[in-house]
């Protein structure tokens, strides 16, 4: 099961559609729930951002069952040391992932809000981070959702589904986990 953890009161209007988007490409049920985490230790005052790895660690401790995956969704800006920002982070072939919608919003770039576009981007990045949690690495096919995105424009360019190779790898990973 995939748990969509809506962190610290963040509940966008399109959260059901996000669940549907994930369900379209990943096996198993998707359930959303609101969750409160202590963001304090993750905050870096000099950067005004939150350390993604801290949030991942906190999310892991909330996991109901070892075979489940948890995806935290937040609006705060995330970083990992050495990088200026990350859209999200996942435990590779693990159980937890976290996604920030901060830099997926048009407003961040001084543009008019676009809820539809934000949902589309959030679905892609959620499926991308959950792909990492299933053991997938970045894909060279720019249409594949596992293609690396370091710009929001890259996110817009890629599709919301796994390519043939990544899809097969995901099936193998899911069947191995089932076995």
């Amino acid at each position, binding site marked *: 099961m995939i748990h969509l953890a809506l962190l610290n009161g963040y509940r966008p209007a399109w959260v059901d559609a996000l669940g549907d988007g994930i369900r379209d490409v990943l096996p198993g049920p998707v359930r959303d729930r609101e969750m409160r985490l202590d963001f304090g230790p993750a905050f870096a005052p000099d950067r005004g951002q939150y350390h993604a790895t801290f949030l991942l660690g906190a999310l892991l401790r909330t996991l109901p069952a070892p075979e489940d995956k948890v995806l935290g969704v937040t609006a705060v800006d995330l970083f990992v*040391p050495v*990088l200026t920002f990350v859209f999200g982070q996942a435990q*590779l072939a693990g159980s937890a992932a976290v996604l920030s919608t901060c830099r997926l919003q048009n407003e961040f770039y001084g543009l008019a809000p676009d809820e539809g576009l934000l949902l589309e981007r959030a679905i892609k990045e959620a499926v991308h981070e959950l792909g990492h949690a299933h053991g997938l*690495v*970045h894909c060279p096919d720019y249409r594949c959702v596992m293609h*690396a995105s370091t710009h929001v424009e890259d996110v817009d360019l890629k599709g919301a589904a796994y390519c043939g190779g990544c899809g097969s790898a995901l099936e193998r990973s899911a069947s191995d986990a089932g076995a």
Partner: protein
Amino acid sequence: MTQRKILIVDDELSVRQSLEGWFREDGFAVEIAEDGKAALAKMHQGPFDIVIVDLKMPGMDGIELQKRVREIDPHAAIIILTAYASVETAVEALKLGAYDYVTKPVDPDDLSHLVGNILKQRALAEENVRLKEFTTLCNTAPIVGASAPMRHVFDLVDSVAETDSTVVIRGESGTGKELVARAIHERSRRRFFPIVAVNAGSLAESLLESELFGHEKGAFTGAQYRRKGKLELADGGTLFLDEIGDITAKTQVDLLRVLETKRFTRVGGNREIESDFRLICATNKHLEKLVEVGTFREDLYYRINVFGIDVPPLRDRRDDIIPLAEFFVEKYARAMGRDRKPLAPETVELLERYRWPGNVRELENAVERAMVIGREGAIVPADLPLQLERQVVPADTSLAAVEKQHIERVLQEAGGNVTRSAKILGIDRATLYNKVRRYGIKR
């Protein structure tokens, strides 16, 4: 595709962890090290495509580490991580050969582009090496010969090429044993991998050992860098070991072990390396006799002597002499940018009669010389090396004719100086004058 390897060296745990996670998601095999010492230990365990080095670290700093990394693996691309305050030092690192530097925190897009560019460059460099190897294969000199003995050699080459058997090629020096080895390689399933040649006869024992097995840095005085051996380079392809009859007893033991296991260690190293190669040996010695007298190991002899090919000396395939000579004329005319020259009838006669103790190599050298020194028109006997003319005396030649020819040559070499010529000939000047008059020799 081979998984790319990256080494991250930073004293800050959070930096190591975040970069490790980021690169793992990108599909890299990632190793991390917290300081210079740990990084160098990792460098010794295997090659890395990229090494990311923090500039400021306690103990060995990034600049020093970069130098040491370069000594171990000059091909690894080094990225320097730095804070704004130390950009000048980062520039110094660039001068020392770092690929680039990035300031912390790094924009993921910049890092992604940087790494992408490094990988593209490496892929191009690797492709270039492969293309060069392939071009070398395509440019391999053909074996010229339509005589019955050479047709037999070609049949044997065709029979054994597709198998993976070890081949021993025997023949006198200069008969073209290496060309036969290359012909086998080119017709084998290993043809898209390199054929690596080692002349065992030309190297001292320690040098041959290093040449074959490679060595680690510091394995011996002067071993400043790690070096791959020919056995490692021949992985997937063919190792051509020339003059195998000349290798020492110790190298014979080492070679036997490699042939049995296809595994070896570099000189001064302890990591076992595997290499899948086919062995083709060549010798101008009588290996069976060497086994009898105990200078060649019997077990090694039986290990290598799976399939034998005897390349005949040129004197036993006289039908090939003129086609070979014409082939070399063509070859050197092209190389020197000159017109192809015909062989004068007396040159043909001379070439066909000569015994060619140096075989095809001697013929090639003779033709090259003729192409260099010859004037306009056909290649005449005077264009050929003197020993050819001296040695070739038709059986029906009279003693007087031989004497006349010899006096003419000595006079020519002495620049027409009778006193010096008489001295060379061992006769007095008066006798030489008489002979010059009698034979009508023009000076």
